[in-house]
């Protein structure tokens, strides 16, 4: 479980997260929505220790992410992350993209790493693209490659930062389908998204962020059907 208490994050004097309390249980799918600049990406970066924090704490399975004694490289193996920009490694084939971290981080043999990579690439529907370089793949395929690459570390949590925002509209579906598949398989997921349909259908809970504050969190029926916060109402009326 991911446990966040009193989390504050500043960039210089700009306080981007103003005291966040949030739990994400094993097997849960949480969608995070909110206007651009409200701190959603920063929250994900804090969770896997890519950004330092100024106050409060984040625990992943009882390990404090920002504790000096925490081995973040080890912790990150539990936390897969998929970014808005596809971030394929352009100099590696699809297979090598996925096999790299299992080999050099998890110290698998080359053979084993490739087996894992093949399995995960098939998992996301790229089983026929093993030897393709990223520049020959579509945006949707590259994003699925990124998902496979994260899954190859056998993470217990997946963090998605607007995984579909940079995609052409016709490519969004294939990536959302892949995310849906993971949710069905029981993966614990935090999905920052602008896809309200996905948030509504797939998530167990939805969190609405407003200017660095977790304004409202609850089941989709509450957030979309009967939001208690005025800010939430206003935001949702604009997105529809």
């Amino acid at each position, binding site marked *: 479980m991911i446990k966040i208490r009193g989390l504050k994050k500043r960039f210089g004097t700009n306080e981007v997260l103003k005291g966040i309390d949030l739990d994400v249980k094993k097997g849960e799918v949480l969608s995070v929505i909110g206007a651009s600049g409200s701190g959603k990406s920063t929250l994900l*970066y804090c969770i*896997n220790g*890519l950004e330092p924090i100024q106050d409060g704490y984040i625990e992943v399975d009882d390990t404090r992410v920002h504790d000096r004694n925490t081995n973040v*490289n*080890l912790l*990150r*193996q539990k*936390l*897969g*992350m998929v*970014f808005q*920009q596809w*971030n394929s*490694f*352009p*100099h*590696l*084939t699809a297979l090598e993209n996925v096999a*790299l*971290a299992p080999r*050099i*981080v*998890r110290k698998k043999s080359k053979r084993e790493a490739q087996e894992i990579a093949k399995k995960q690439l098939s998992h996301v529907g790229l089983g026929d693209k093993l030897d393709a*370089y*990223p*520049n020959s793949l579509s945006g949707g395929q590259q994003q699925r490659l*990124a998902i496979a*690459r*994260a899954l190859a*570390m056998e993470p217990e949590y997946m963090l998605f930062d607007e995984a579909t925002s940079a995609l052409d509209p016709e490519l969004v579906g294939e990536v959302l389908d892949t995310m849906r598949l993971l949710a069905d398989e029981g993966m614990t997921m935090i999905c920052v998204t602008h896809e309200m349909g996905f948030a509504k259908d797939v998530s167990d809970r939805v969190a609405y962020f407003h200017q660095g504050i977790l304004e409202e969190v609850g089941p989709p029926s509450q957030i979309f059907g009967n939001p208690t916060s005025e800010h939430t109402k206003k935001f949702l009326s604009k997105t529809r």
Partner: protein
Amino acid sequence: MDYNFHWRPVFRALPDLFEAALITLEISTLSILLGIVLGMVLAISKMKGPWPLRALAIGWIEIARNTPALFQLFFFGFGLGAFGLHLSPYMIVLIGLTYNNAGYLAETFRGGINAVPETQVKAGRSLGMTATQVFTRIIAPQVLKIVYHPMTNQFVWAVLMSSLGMLVGFRELSGETQFFASKTFRIFEYFAVTALIYYVIVKIILGVSKLIAWRAFRWGN
């Protein structure tokens, strides 16, 4: 025109010239390899180093790029000589060329590193890779592609620049040519042939470089 061309002495000296050409090739190859390593260290020092290291890197780069290469050679030859430190001609040329290569390559590398999106680092780190692993496995190969052609040019430049060696008494290709030319006074003939040898060396380097690039960067667009 009453100058008569005499090529025969040049042809007789060819084996010696070829041998000297190998020395040219050896010293420029060494200086470019050392220059690559030092250039990378300088680039990273300038970008991320603590201030003394950064100041050193900036000073090195500025002087290497903005003063004549010949003066840099003279510094390692006569300049250090004034302080009682006498280097062999070979070392003067090797150190001088390396100094110059490193300064130029540092800026090339810095540009290359900056051209790789920061998000690539985040992606690597999010997979649990260490900063070093991200650099060697993800950033460096991409930088290599970006800097490959400037690096090849620098190599060519090093080959040509090594001819300055003759001015500090080093018998690389130009020094050797000068030696024969002054012995026989067939100055034009010797230097014409030597120019041709330089030309062929450079063309070979460019050809091989193209071949390597074609093999190594198939992933690029």
